[in-house]
C-alpha cells in the first residue's frame, strides 16, 4: 500500500443479501484480497441506481463495482432483473460518453461465493490498477487529445407541391369545427413565426382565430409538449400532431400523464420538416409518416427519401473513436451548455413537476453550468429518456448551444431496441422497458 | 459431408483388413473418404503415458494437415480417442496450442471435429440408409458387439452414445440383419495397451470377454478397434493354454460384418486374415 504503485479507489455497491453476505463469508474464511474496495451496502441491486455509478465517478472513484444476487436468487425476487436492464443501458451510455468500460464491473456474487468475491475484488483492483488513474476528472476534457468534430450532410428539402396548403385548409376546417361545436376549448397548432421561414406554436380558442393557423415545412415543434399542461381556457385541448409527436402521446398515456379522451388529436400526414434550410436529418429515413392514434388524419404522407438514417453514420463514427476522443467530443459539446434547460422544457416527455436536476437534497447533479454539472445533467437527461424518447428532435432544436443531443437519445433508443426489442411511443398498452424484465435478458457484461 | 480419413498404423499392418473393409463399406454407402496425406501415428497410450505434450503434438501434426473437410473420420477406437482428445484440448487450451505450435511447428486449433466411423454411420448416414442398401442380411447371426473402452471414454470428451450401454454398433449391425445379443462386457477393457508387455494379463481380460460373449449366445464378436481385435482373436490360443477353454469365437471388425451384408466381395473384406476363421459360422448360417 505504501509503494509507488497506483492504488485505485474502487466503490462497490452491493446488495445486502447475497454479495454483502458473500463478502462476509470471504472474511469468515480469511480469504485475502486487496484493500482498495469500499463497499456501500444497499438492500438490493434494485436499489442500486445506475446514477450511483455516475455519482461515484463524479466523486473521483477510479473504478466501480456493482454486485448482487444471481438471477433467480433475488431476496426480493426481481430486483436484480430490473437492475440488470438498467445497467445494460446505463453502461452503454457511459461507454458512448467515453467512460472507459474497463472501469465498470458488474457481477452476481451469492452469499455462498466468498471465493468469487475475493477473486473478483482481486481482479477488479488489478484491472483498475493497470489502467492507472482516470485521465480526467468528471466533466473535464482529457488533456492532449483533440476533440473530434462531426459534420452532418444536409439533405435538400423537397416539399411536395400543393400538399401543405390542402392539408392546412383541412386542418383549419377541423379546428373550426371542434371549436365551434364546443368539443374543445383550445386548439394548439402552428402559426407564422416573426422570423422569416419559421412557424411557432399557437393557441386558438375561437373559430375566428383559426385562420392564424398554418401548416408547412417549418412546423417542427412537438406540440405534445403542451398536452399534459393545464389549458388556460376551459374545455378539452385539440393538438395538431405529426406522427412523431403522436408517439410522445403514447408515452404520456403509458405514464398516466393524461387519458386518451382528454385530448383530440388532429393528425397530419407527414412530409418531413425543415431544419436550417434542409430536411431535418431525423426525417430522412423516418418510416413513421402517418399518425396512428389521431382522430382525423389529414392528407397523404410523402414516403421517406432516404433508406438509411444519416444520424446512424454519425453514431457509428463516434463509436469508432477511442474512449478519450469520445469523451472529449462530448466534453467539447457540453462545455457550451448554459444549463438553460431548453432541452428539458421542449421535451414532451419531461413531465416531472420537480426535475431531478432541481432536487437540492441530495444534489444529484452539480447545479452550476460547468464541466461536472453539464456532463451529469446530460447523462441524467439521456438516461431518463432511455426507452422513452420518441426521437421528435425537439431537444436538439431547442438547444441554443447546438449540442447534438439527438445522438445520445438515438444511441440509447438503439440499445433499448437491441437489448429489449422495444421501441418507445408505439403501443400505449406496453410496459415501458425499464419497468419490466425478462428472466433471459442478456447479461454478457455481468460476470 | 466430406471426411478426411485417418487409417492409423495398425490398419496398415496387423489390421489391414479393417482399413480395407472400412473403405469398401464406405464406398458402398456413398461415404467419401479422402486419406489425410502423410499422416503420422497418433502416439497411442505410450505417448500419453510418457509426455502429455507429445500426446497432443503428434495428433496435432496430423490434424493440421486436414484441409477442406467437415470431419476427420477414424476407424480405430484408440486413434479416435487420441485424436479427439487432442483436438478437444487444443480447442480449450490456448497455452497448450502455443506449446504445440512450438513443438510440432504447425498451428492447430482443433476446429475440425474428429469422428468415429460408427458415429458417422449412425448419425450422419442413419441406419435406415444402411438397411436400404443391405443385400445379404446377416439373418440368424448372433453378434456380441464389443465397443471396448476408448470409444466412449472419457464420456465428456469422446462419447457419442450412452457410455455405460452404447447402442450404435448394435444398431448398425441390426440394420445389417444381425441379431445383437445383450451382454454385459460391451465396454470392459481388453487390456490392449498391455498386449505387448504383459500378455499374461491381457489373456485374463480376453478370457472374461470371450466367456461373456459365448454365455450370451453370440456366434461372433464384432469390434471397432485393432487392438481389441488382436487381443480377442490372436490371443484365443493363449487363452486356451492359460485357462483351458477353447472358444473358437470368430472376432470380426464391424466393417467386415457390415460389408458382408452390403454384398462386398470377401476379398474386399480380408476375412481370410482372421486367425479364428468365421467360415464355419458363416457357412452354417448360409445353410440354414
Amino acid at each position, binding site marked *: 500500500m505504501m509503494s509507488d504503485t497506483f492504488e485505485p479507489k474502487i466503490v462497490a455497491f452491493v446488495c445486502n443479501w447475497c454479495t454483502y453476505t458473500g463478502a462476509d463469508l470471504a472474511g469468515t474464511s480469511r480469504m485475502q484480497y486487496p484493500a482498495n474496495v469500499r463497499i456501500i451496502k444497499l438492500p438490493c441491486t434494485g436499489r442500486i441506481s445506475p446514477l450511483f455509478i455516475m455519482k461515484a465517478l463524479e466523486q473521483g472513484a477510479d473504478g466501480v463495482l456493482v454486485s448482487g444476487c444471481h438471477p433467480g436468487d433475488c431476496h426480493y425476487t426481481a430486483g436484480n432483473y430490473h437492475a440488470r436492464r438498467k445497467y445494460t443501458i446505463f453502461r452503454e451510455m457511459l461507454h458512448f460518453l467515453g467512460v472507459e468500460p474497463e472501469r465498470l464491473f458488474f457481477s452476481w456474487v451469492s452469499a455462498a461465493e466468498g471465493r468469487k468475491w475475493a477473486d473478483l475484488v482481486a481482479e477488479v483492483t488489478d484491472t483498475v490498477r493497470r489502467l492507472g488513474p482516470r485521465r480526467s476528472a468528471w466533466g473535464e476534457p482529457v488533456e492532449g487529445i483533440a476533440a473530434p*468534430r462531426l459534420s452532418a450532410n444536409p439533405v435538400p428539402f423537397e416539399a411536395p407541391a400543393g400538399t401543405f396548403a390542402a392539408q392546412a385548409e383541412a386542418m383549419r376546417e377541423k379546428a373550426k369545427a371542434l371549436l365551434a361545436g364546443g368539443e374543445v376549448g383550445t386548439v394548439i397548432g402552428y402559426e407564422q413565426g416573426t422570423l422569416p421561414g*419559421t412557424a411557432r406554436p399557437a393557441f386558438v380558442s375561437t373559430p375566428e382565430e383559426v385562420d392564424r393557423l398554418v401548416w408547412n415545412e417549418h412546423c417542427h415543434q412537438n406540440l405534445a409538449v403542451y398536452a399534459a399542461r393545464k389549458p388556460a381556457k376551459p374545455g378539452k385541448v385539440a393538438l395538431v400532431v405529426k406522427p412523431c409527436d403522436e408517439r410522445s402521446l403514447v408515452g404520456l398515456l403509458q405514464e398516466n400523464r393524461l387519458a386518451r379522451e382528454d385530448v383530440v388529436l388532429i393528425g397530419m400526414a407527414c412530409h418531413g420538416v425543415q431544419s436550417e434550410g434542409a430536411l431535418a436529418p431525423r426525417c430522412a429515413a423516418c418510416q413513421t409518416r402517418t399518425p396512428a392514434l389521431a382522430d382525423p388524419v389529414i392528407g397523404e404522407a410523402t414516403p421517406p427519401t432516404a433508406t438509411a438514417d444519416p444520424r446512424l453514420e454519425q453514431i457509428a463514427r463516434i463509436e469508432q473513436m477511442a474512449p478519450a476522443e469520445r469523451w472529449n467530443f462530448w466534453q467539447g459539446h457540453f462545455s457550451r451548455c448554459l444549463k438553460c434547460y431548453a432541452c428539458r422544457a421542449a421535451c414532451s416527455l419531461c413531465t416531472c413537476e420537480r426535475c431531478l436536476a432541481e432536487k437540492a437534497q441530495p444534489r444529484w447533479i452539480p447545479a452550476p453550468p460547468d464541466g461536472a454539472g453539464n456532463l451529469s445533467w446530460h447523462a441524467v437527461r439521456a438516461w431518463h429518456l432511455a426507452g422513452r424518447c420518441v426521437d421528435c428532435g425537439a431537444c436538439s432544436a431547442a438547444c441554443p448551444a447546438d449540442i447534438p443531443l439527438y445522438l445520445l437519445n438515438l444511441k440509447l433508443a438503439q440499445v433499448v431496441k437491441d437489448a429489449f426489442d422495444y421501441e418507445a411511443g408505439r403501443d400505449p398498452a406496453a410496459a415501458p422497458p425499464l419497468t419490466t424484465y425478462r428472466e433471459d435478458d442478456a447479461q454478457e457484461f455481468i460476470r | 459431408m466430406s471426411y478426411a480419413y485417418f487409417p492409423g498404423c495398425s490398419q496398415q499392418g496387423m489390421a489391414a483388413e479393417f482399413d480395407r473393409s472400412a473403405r469398401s463399406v464406405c464406398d458402398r454407402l456413398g461415404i467419401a473418404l479422402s486419406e489425410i496425406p502423410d499422416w503420422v501415428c497418433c502416439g497411442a497410450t505410450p505417448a500419453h503415458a510418457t509426455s502429455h505434450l507429445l500426446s497432443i503434438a503428434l495428433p496435432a501434426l496430423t490434424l493440421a494437415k486436414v484441409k477442406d473437410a467437415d470431419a476427420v473420420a477414424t476407424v480405430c477406437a484408440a486413434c479416435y480417442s487420441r485424436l479427439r482428445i487432442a483436438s478437444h484440448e487444443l480447442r480449450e487450451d490456448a497455452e497448450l496450442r502455443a506449446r504445440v505450435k512450438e513443438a510440432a511447428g504447425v498451428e492447430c486449433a482443433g476446429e475440425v471435429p474428429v469422428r468415429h466411423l460408427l458415429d458417422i454411420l449412425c448419425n450422419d448416414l442413419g441406419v435406415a440408409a444402411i438397411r436400404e442398401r443391405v443385400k445379404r442380411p446377416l439373418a440368424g447371426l448372433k453378434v456380441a458387439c464389443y465397443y471396448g473402452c476408448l470409444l466412449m471414454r472419457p464420456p465428456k470428451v469422446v462419447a457419442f452414445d450412452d457410455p455405460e450401454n452404447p447402442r450404435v454398433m448394435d444398431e448398425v449391425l441390426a440394420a445389417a440383419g444381425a441379431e445383437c445379443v445383450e451382454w454385459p462386457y460391451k465396454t470392459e477393457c481388453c487390456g490392449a495397451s498391455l498386449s505387448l508387455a504383459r500378455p499374461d494379463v491381457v489373456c485374463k481380460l480376453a478370457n472374461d470377454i470371450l466367456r461373456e460373449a459365448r454365455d450370451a449366445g453370440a456366434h461372433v464378436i464384432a469390434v471397432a478397434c485393432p487392438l481389441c481385435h488382436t487381443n480377442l482373436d490372436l490371443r484365443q490360443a493363449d487363452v486356451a493354454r492359460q485357462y483351458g477353454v477353447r472358444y473358437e469365437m470368430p472376432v470380426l471388425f464391424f466393417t467386415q460384418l457390415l460389408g458382408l451384408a452390403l454384398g462386398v466381395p470377401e476379398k474386399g473384406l480380408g476375412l481370410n486374415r482372421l486367425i479364428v476363421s468365421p467360415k464355419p459360422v458363416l457357412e452354417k448360417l448360409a445353410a440354414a
Partner: protein
Amino acid sequence: MAKALRTEALLDFLRAVQQDARRLVAPVEEDGLRLFRAVDRVEEITLAEGNTRWSFKEVLFPRSEALFHYRLSGGSVALQEPDQPEGETVVFGARPCDAAGLAVLDAVFAPNGRPDPDQAPEHEDPFYRRRRAQTTIIGLACLEPGPACFCTAVGLSPTGTAGSDLLLTPLPDQGVFLAEAVTEKGERLLAAHAHLFTDTDDTKEQATRAAEGRIQRTALSGVGGPLATLFEAPPWEELAARCLGCGACAFVCPTCHCFDIVDEGNAAGGSRCKFWDSCGFALFTAHTSGHNPRATQPARFRQRVLHKFRYLPERFGVQGCVGCGRCIATCPVNMDIQEVVAKVTG
C-alpha cells in the same frame, strides 16, 4: 480627428493587442455556431456579420464561478479565496448592442458609476469589478443587422459607441476600419499601436444610415410609461401561453444578470458557487414552503418583459433591453419580446 485601420492590418493589430493583454476574447466558429472564446491565434477570429449565439457577458460575469472554497476538518472550517486567472483581457468584436448592455451589468454589479477599484460601494460585486477594470472592449459596428435585430427600436444604433472602449466601424469601400476611441482605455490602445493607424477624414455616417435602414422592426415608443400600468391588464396568459419556461432567453441576453448561489461539495470540503439563473425558471421564485409567487409561466414571462422595460429604467436609469434580438432567435417557440412590447404598448 478619426483614425483608420487598414482592413488587412486588423490581424496585426489584434496580434499586437493579444501580446499586451493576457487574453484576447473574440468571436470564433465552433461546431457551426459563432461564440466568443479566448483565442490562441488571431486567424481563428471570424468577422462575419451578425451576432454571436450569446453575448460576451460571461467574460465579466462568468456563467459559473467559485466565490470561495472551503475545507472541513474536525470542528473547523478553512476558507480559501478562488483564483481569478483571467487577468488583462481584451474583448474584440463586441457588437454595439452587446457593448451597450454593459451599462446594465455595471449598474447592478458596480453601481458606483464606472468601476473604480479603490471606491468599492457596499453592494458591489468585487469579482465583477476586478474583471471589469481589467477588460478593454473593442467594439465592431454592424453593417448588416439580422431579422431579429431591433437596437434602433430601443434607441441604440448598429454603429453606436456606448460601452466600447474603442469602436471599429468597417468601411469596406475605403478598405479600412474607422477607429473611434471612446474611453481613456481606447485612447491608450490607439496610442500604443499608433503605427497601425492613420488619420482619416472618413466618417461612418453613411454606414450608419445604411445599417439602421436594414432594421425592419418598429420602434418601441414610450415603453417606460404605459408598461407601468400593465401588470395585470394585458393578456399575458395568451401572450405567453406557448412559453416553455426554459432559460435560453436569459442566458443569451447581454443584460440578464440574475444568478444563484449553491455550495457544491462533500463532507470534506467544497466551493460556494455563483452561477447564472433565469426568471424563466419556476424554481427561480419557489419558496421552501412550496409556495411560488410567480406560479405560472405567463407571470414569469411578464417579469422578464417588465424587468427590462420598466424596472431597470425606473431603478437604475438604464435601458434593460439593447435590441440584440438573441432571445427571439434562440427561443424554441419564438417568444418575441419586441413583438410583445409593441403589442402591449401600441
